[in-house]
């Protein structure tokens, strides 16, 4: 009787541990892989939104490069980095795009890219089959200033199929994320911040990478 109880406790502990550490895509190959996010057709996109009292600004960039190294069966192993070129930021007004690139704003000449480096994965939660929500600790750099904070992201694994081949050869990794940054944190100071440009900017990323590009 006592042996059975001990056996049950050990078994339940093992199951719990398995559930806690089964933090990766099922049926994915158990090996380290690199997914690259440099889409020659520029379908990967990062958008930004500023909502200020006088004006709402929406912009995008499709010039994104990056790679993620991970073992798909263990999402805590993720390491990666992404870069967005500042000169590719587009808001629908050419003059405003020029201003964004100016020294007063993001200074594209001196700091041509905005960079995000994944330092550590803090939390992994399964949403559904082949879809996980992660909390990642990242270094985000704008205008040469690096800030460290946590972001949440959704990751979807799509094994190679006839549908995925229309985008890229190989398995696909889809990453979606939304987070806010404060312009003053990165040394972007201007009189119109708070009136025509919001101090807090919402950034959204929609990225598709492949392990065969």
């Amino acid at each position, binding site marked *: 009787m006592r042996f059975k109880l001990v056996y049950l406790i050990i078994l339940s502990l093992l199951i719990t541990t398995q559930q806690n550490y089964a933090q990766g895509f099922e049926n994915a190959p158990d090996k380290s892989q690199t997914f690259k996010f440099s889409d020659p057709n520029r*379908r990967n*996109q990062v*958008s930004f939104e500023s909502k200020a009292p*006088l*004006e709402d600004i*929406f912009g*995008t960039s499709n010039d994104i490069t990056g790679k993620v190294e991970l073992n798909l069966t263990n999402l805590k192993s993720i390491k990666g980095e992404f870069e967005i070129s500042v000169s590719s930021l*587009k808001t*629908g*007004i*050419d003059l*405003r795009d020029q201003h964004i690139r100016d020294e007063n704003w993001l200074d594209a000449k001196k700091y041509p890219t905005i960079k995000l480096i994944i330092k550590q994965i803090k939390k992994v939660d399964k949403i559904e089959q082949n879809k996980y929500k992660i909390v990642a600790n990242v270094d985000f750099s704008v205008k040469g200033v690096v800030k460290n904070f946590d972001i949440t992201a959704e990751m*979807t694994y*799509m094994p190679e199929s006839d*549908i*995925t081949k*229309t*985008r890229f050869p190989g398995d*696909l990794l*889809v990453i*979606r994320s939304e987070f806010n940054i404060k312009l003053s944190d990165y040394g972007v100071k201007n009189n119109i911040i708070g009136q025509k440009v919001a101090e807090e900017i919402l950034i959204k990323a*929609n990225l*598709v990478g492949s392990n065969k590009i």
Partner: protein
Amino acid sequence: MKLSRLRLLLSSIPILIAFFLLIIWGFNGFELFSKNSIAVEQIDPITNQPYYEWKDKFVFGLIDFVLPIILASIIIFLTIYYILKRRFKNEI
């Protein structure tokens, strides 16, 4: 009598222009500044995620397009009105 009719006609033209421009501005989305292109939401067929494509389209802005035209038209018509008024007085 002739002048008051002319005055009515002249003063209604800037009002009509302003009204017409404000309607166009409303149809263009009440934008504050003019735009050269607009972001159109699309859905990625593979990921089912939204993304935006830029389409070339001129959108009238209030501050840099609609208001200056309205002000200019009012100034032009007021100038014409005073010139005509002076000529009318001289003729009498």
